[in-house]
């Protein structure tokens, strides 16, 4: 089964637009070393993966579990999964949940997804791919499907290009058609080009859509979030999840939250194209520091501002506090009060350890940070900061206790 969520009839009865998602995750590559199919003579340095199908599954679960936060009701999810045995062992739900992500299945799912997207201009589409990928330019990459590198035809026959997908989803040159004008693309794959591919400049992936030229491209927003900038690798934790998806989920859970005031003065929090763009790298940098990677996300498509999802509560914000000089750390005592002078709930330990000290506070109020020295020391009078307002994901503050 590919269509794993279908609420089209219900939405059609109500005359409502909806969000249509196509999610594909490939870990098991049939023709790469260790795969179940006939091994190709050339593997281009690629092997089996253990995290990308489960990443796609978690993306699917995130959409299902967070429907109330989406900008439109969830109409359809099409899911294609080629999981590794390790992923199935870890998450048994992967077994038989969705069709494998072969070229044929991908083309069918994409055509059906496009048809659904083309029923209402107000629709929103979401595309997520996790698996092996190679670079084709700033706005393009080749997505390698489960049967990539099989015998016969071009090396890239069982692969597709994001540019073809993106242009194919442009509003058609026929005013009767009603293509979704808001489209989100997430390409969670490497964007480097194995040296051996560089000899094959004219290798052609299979077109996803027939190459019809679009009419006026009046998409409201159509950003492509690439997990890696071109000529670099994307990374994953084996058997767990890709770094990009971990960062993305942290952003969607509030790390990229921004407040917006409606016409009644009500403040709501949402994630937008721009706020996601800014926060993604903060979390990727955390993983880069932890795992020694150097992953940087890249922007493509049309990065126009729009809401990606809403938040149902005020997000937390992280304040990272650094005592300067470090010699004062043992005697530095932190007090945090809100703008009315009320101490902030939650115990702050006497010793700010581990240092730098991390504090999580709700993002909707301002805080005053004071650092006193106990016992008093004439060299370190302490720190009394002005009110700080901090937007997610975080703010670093140096508590300079010297004059």
């Amino acid at each position, binding site marked *: 089964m590919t269509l794993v969520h279908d609420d089209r009839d219900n939405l059609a009865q109500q005359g409502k637009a909806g969000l249509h998602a196509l999610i594909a995750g490939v870990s098991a590559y049939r023709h790469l070393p260790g795969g179940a199919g006939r091994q190709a003579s050339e593997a281009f340095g690629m092997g089996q993966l253990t995290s990308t199908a489960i990443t796609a599954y978690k993306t699917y679960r995130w959409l299902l579990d967070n429907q109330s936060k989406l900008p439109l009701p969830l109409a359809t999810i099409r899911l294609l999964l080629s999981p590794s045995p390790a992923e199935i062992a870890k998450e048994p739900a992967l077994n038989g949940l969705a069709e494998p992500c072969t070229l044929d299945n991908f083309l069918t799912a994409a055509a059906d997804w496009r048809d659904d997207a083309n029923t209402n201009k107000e629709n929103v589409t979401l595309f997520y791919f996790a698996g092996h990928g190679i670079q084709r330019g700033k706005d393009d990459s080749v997505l390698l499907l489960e049967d990539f590198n099989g015998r016969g035809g071009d090396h890239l026959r069982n692969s597709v290009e994001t540019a073809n997908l993106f242009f194919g989803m442009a509003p058609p040159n026929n005013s009767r058609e009603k293509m979704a004008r808001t489209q989100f693309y997430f390409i969670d794959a490497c964007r480097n080009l194995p040296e051996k591919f560089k000899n094959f400049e004219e290798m052609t992936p299979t077109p996803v859509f027939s190459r019809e030229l679009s009419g006026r491209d009046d998409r409201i927003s159509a950003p492509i979030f690439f997990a890696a900038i071109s000529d670099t690798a994307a990374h994953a934790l084996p058997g767990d999840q890709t770094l990009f998806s971990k960062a993305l989920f942290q952003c969607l859970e509030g790390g990229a939250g921004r407040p917006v005031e409606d016409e009644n003065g009500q403040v709501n929090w949402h994630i937008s194209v721009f706020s996601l763009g800014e926060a993604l790298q903060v979390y990727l940098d955390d993983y880069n520091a932890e795992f020694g990677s150097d992953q940087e996300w890249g922007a493509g498509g049309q990065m126009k501002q729009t809401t990606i999802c809403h938040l149902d509560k005020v997000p937390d914000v992280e304040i990272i506090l650094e005592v300067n000089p470090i010699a004062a750390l043992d005697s530095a005592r932190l007090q945090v009060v809100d703008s009315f002078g009320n101490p902030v709930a939650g115990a702050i330990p006497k010793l700010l350890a581990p240092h730098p000290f991390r504090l999580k506070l709700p993002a909707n109020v301002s805080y005053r940070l004071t650092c006193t020295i106990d016992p008093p020391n004439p060299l370190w009078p302490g720190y009394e900061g002005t*009110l700080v307002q901090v937007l997610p994901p975080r703010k670093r503050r140096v508590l300079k206790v010297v004059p």
Partner: protein
Amino acid sequence: MSKLSFRPDFHSRELYSLDLPVEVLRSNLTMETRSFTSKTVDVQPGTYYVTAKLPAGQELTGYVQVAEGESKVVSLKLDPSDESPHETEETQRYLWGQMGYEPILERLGGDETEVKFRAFEGNILKTDGRYKAIRAKNWLKKATRPQPPGVYEFEFNTAAPRLAACTLLQFLQPDAPAINIVLPAQKQETWHIVVSLQPDETYSLDVYLQHKAADALLRYCERGLLEQVAVMATSQALEVLYLKKEDPIAAASAAYVLLRLDAIEQPGKRTGHWLENLRNWFPWLPDGAVACGEYLARKGRHKDALAAFLELSERGLPLFSDGLSYAVNRLKLYIGTEDKHFEPEQISKAKTLLQQLQRVLTYTDFHKAVLTFKGVDPNRPSNQHLDDAHVQKYGGIDLTTLLG
């Protein structure tokens, strides 16, 4: 109403003159207004938190309470941990994100490593077109070694009307591929090139535009700071594009930013005409044709768009990596639809052009806004790493003494 103006806490004149986007937030963190550090804004009486992000990602912040009818200047300060140790390093740190690197160990004994600049002219997009090495010595106008450590600045001037339209600067160093940058010779332009030592002890190369606002826009884009890009796009980028005669290269970079944000169409502005003029008035500028072509394609005017992209054969490689990307993607699309929409001759030209562009695309560093590709022979881009002997055998400007 009350009024707020802003004073960024910089020391260098260059930084102080930069008009940064600011966000004025209310006490509940919702947006009161967005503006620029040079402007005065009207606000309701209240308490505001003001932030301004620098192109290299650091943040200036300020806090202000303003009563009815009052005018206040908000002092915008950096967090102490981000402050530049020297006034002279502000540009490098806050605009370019160059923090500097100094090798931990010093070498005992001589070092014969050579690092060089070479120059080329020619157009590989023309049938049988080739880049030929030329004398680069006259191009180098200034070399400085400011703080922070490991960062070196060079000023080149490529203006030389006798040369072909397309010129190219190459940087050679051992243990890395040669790096090529397209710098047109038809414009009286000072190119600001920064060579910086990396922790792996190879040098990286960055080009900065003379036009400060256009350059800041590119840096915000490179760092994914889209809020800032959007604020600048709807005012400064449009202005830079409109004033294209003053600086057509800055105008081309602004056009790409506007295309990326899909912000070309603005009410009451003839931005489409501005792009067509950028293409028509500067026939030496490849990016005028590409930006206009991409705009026409988005309007659904695909035949006109293809004609614009095909002009690259005469104009040469785009100066900006966005230009290369847009051209390749559109040409591939149009070639795939050849029978129905375009003349066979156009498609044949498109195929030849695409083939040439793809040779460069494969070795292009898309992290850089200015088109940068690898290969010691720019006619045959490659990943080939050079060794000392390779670098020594080529002519060019030896930078060894300058880099110290």
